[in-house]
C-alpha cells in the first residue's frame, strides 16, 4: 500500500539573476515498510525532494505538484498540521550530525526532547524512554553517553544519536538524508546496521537519500536514480545492481571503485539552464537525434521504470 505518493513534483528556486530548476515533474510511490533509496550526484535534487515532503524549503521556492500522505496533500497542509506531522509521523535525519545536534545540550536530553514536545511527557520519563531506545539500538556505555555532549563523540556516534532521536516517536516514514556522508568505514557500518535494525524492528518506511552505493545495496528494497532533477530509473535493488538500464545509471556504476573509477564524460548539467529533451543527452554515449528535442517517456520493463528512448 502506498504510504507516500508524490505526483508531478516540480521545485524551482528563484535567485537574483537565475532560476534553479531543482526538481522537474517527479512522480514516486513509497510503499509502507519499504526502503527506497534515492540516488544521484550532488545537486541533482535528492535533498530538495526530502525537504519538500516535510516542507522545509526557503522562501524563494516555487513548488508545484502533489505529495499525498495518509490521504492528505502535504503541499496544501497548514503550518499547524505540518508541525504535528514533522517528527511524529515523518521524521527526517539531516546530513550533518555536527550541525543537527545542539552543542550545549546533553545527548540523552536531545533524544528525549521530541517526547516532551510532541507527547507532553515529563522530562524524567522522557529521558528514561530515550535510555530504553538507546538500549534497543545497542548503545554501549549508556550511562556516560546519556550525560555526554555531542563534541565528546565521533561523527558516527552523533549520527546514531540523531537516528535514535528521530525514532523515539515511532514515525511511519523516516527520511535519512546522506546518513553516512563524511563517516569512515567503521562508522558507516554502524549506521548501516542501525538503519537495517530499525527497519526490521519498527516496520517504518525509509526514504534513503544517498550516493553511498554500499549502503543502498545493503538495505534498500528499491533504487531510484536521479539526474538533474528527474528520476531516470526505478528498479528493485537486485535488478538494478545486476543490470542498470538507463545510460546514466550504467555510467554511475562504472564510477565505483570495483569498476576502476571510470568517470562520466563531460561536465554536469547547470541546473539554471538544463538542456532540452533528455537531460543526460549531452553526456550520453547512446544519444540519438530525438534525445535533444523531446523528453523521453517513462517506460515500464519487467516491473522497473526507465526514462530513455532506448527502451521505447
Amino acid at each position: 500500500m502506498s504510504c507516500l505518493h508524490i505526483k508531478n513534483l516540480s521545485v524551482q528556486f528563484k535567485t537574483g539573476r537565475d532560476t534553479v530548476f531543482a526538481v522537474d515533474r517527479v512522480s514516486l510511490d513509497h510503499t509502507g515498510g519499504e526502503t527506497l533509496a534515492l540516488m544521484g550526484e550532488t545537486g541533482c535534487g535528492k535533498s530538495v525532494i526530502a525537504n519538500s515532503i516535510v516542507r522545509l524549503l526557503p522562501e524563494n521556492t516555487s513548488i508545484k505538484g502533489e505529495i499525498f500522505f495518509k490521504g492528505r496533500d502535504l503541499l496544501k497542509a497548514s503550518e499547524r498540521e505540518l508541525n504535528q506531522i514533522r517528527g511524529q509521523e515523518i521524521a527526517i535525519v539531516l546530513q550533518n550530525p555536527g550541525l543537527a545536534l545542539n552543542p550545549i545540550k546533553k545527548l540523552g536530553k536531545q533524544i528525549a526532547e521530541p517526547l516532551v514536545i510532541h507527547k507532553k511527557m515529563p522530562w524524567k520519563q522522557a529521558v528514561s524512554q530515550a535510555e530504553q531506545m538507546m538500549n534497543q539500538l545497542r548503545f554501549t556505555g549508556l550511562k556516560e553517553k546519556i550525560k555526554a555532549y555531542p563534541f565528546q563523540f565521533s561523527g558516527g556516534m552523533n549520527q546514531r544519536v540523531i537516528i535514535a532521536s528521530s525514532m523515539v516517536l515511532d514515525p511511519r516514514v523516516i527520511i535519512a538524508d546522506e546518513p553516512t556522508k563524511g563517516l569512515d568505514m567503521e562508522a558507516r557500518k554502524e549506521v548501516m546496521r542501525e538503519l537495517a535494525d530499525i527497519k526490521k524492528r519498527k516496520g517504518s518506511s525509509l526514504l534513503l537519500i544517498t550516493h553511498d552505493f554500499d549502503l543502498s545495496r545493503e538495505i534498500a528494497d528499491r533504487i531510484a536514480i536521479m539526474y538533474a532533477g528527474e528520476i531516470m530509473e526505478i528498479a528493485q535493488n537486485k535488478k538494478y545492481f545486476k543490470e542498470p538500464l538507463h545510460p546514466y545509471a550504467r555510467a554511475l556504476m562504472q564510477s565505483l571503485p570495483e569498476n576502476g573509477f571510470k568517470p562520466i564524460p563531460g561536465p554536469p548539467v547547470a541546473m539554471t539552464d538544463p538542456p532540452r529533451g533528455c537531460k543526460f543527452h549531452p553526456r550520453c554515449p547512446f544519444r540519438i537525434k530525438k534525445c535533444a528535442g523531446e523528453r523521453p517517456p517513462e517506460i515500464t520493463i519487467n516491473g522497473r521504470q526507465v526514462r530513455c528512448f532506448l527502451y521505447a
Partner: protein
Amino acid sequence: MLPLCLMEIQDVSKTFRYGLIKRKGRSVFNNISLSIPSGGTVGITGKSGIGKTSLGKIAAGIIPPSKGHVLYKGKDIFKMQKAEWNTFRTKVQMMFQDPEGALNPMKTIGRQFNAVCRLMGEKDNNKACKRIQEVMDQTGLSDEILDRFPNELSGGQNQRVALGRVLLLEPEIIILDEPTSALDISVQAQILQLLKTIQQENRISYLYISHNKKLIEFMSDTIFSMDKDEQDSY
C-alpha cells in the same frame, strides 16, 4: 636530477598536550617511518582519529613532530635555514578535504590564482595569465569560473581550483588529505583520474591520505596502514 627518495619520515611520533594547569598528553601515533619516492604515490590509510591528517601536516611542515625527523632531499625540514624553508614550503603542498574551506570566500577564483602568481614573484601580467591558462587547461576548468566566487562553484569544480592553485606553485610533492571524501562517486572518479594524469605529466609525488582502502589501493604504489592491528606497509 631529483634524488630517488624525495622525503623521508623517520621514527615520527606525535603527542598533543592539553589542560591549562595539569598538562596532560594524548599520544596519537608512535615511531612512524616511511619514504616518498620521486614521482610515486604513498597511500596512508587508517580509521578516523588515528592521526592520518596530523602525519600529513607534519610532512607538510605545518605542525612539528613530538619526536623523530622529516627529511626533504636529505635535510631535516625543522632545522632548515629561511631560504631552504621557503623553497620547501613551495615545493611541498597540501590539499585538504573541504575544497570550499580551503579557498578564500571573499575573492574570485581569478584573484586567487593571481595572488599565487604574485607570491611566486611573477610581475608580468601576461606571463601570469598564460601560466593560469595552462593550469586551467590541465585541470579542466573553463574561463567563465575566473569571475566567480567559491560558493558559486560545485564541490568538484572547487577541488579542481584547489588543485590548480597548488599546481601554479610547481610542487614536487602534494599531500592529499581525503581530497574526494566530500565529493560524490562520479565526481570522485573524475578527480582521481585527473590526479593520475597530472602525476604522469608533471612527475609529482603524492602522499595520499584516505580512510577508503579501495581508493588507496587504486591510487598508491605503496600503502602504509596506521591501524594498530595491521600496522605495516604492503
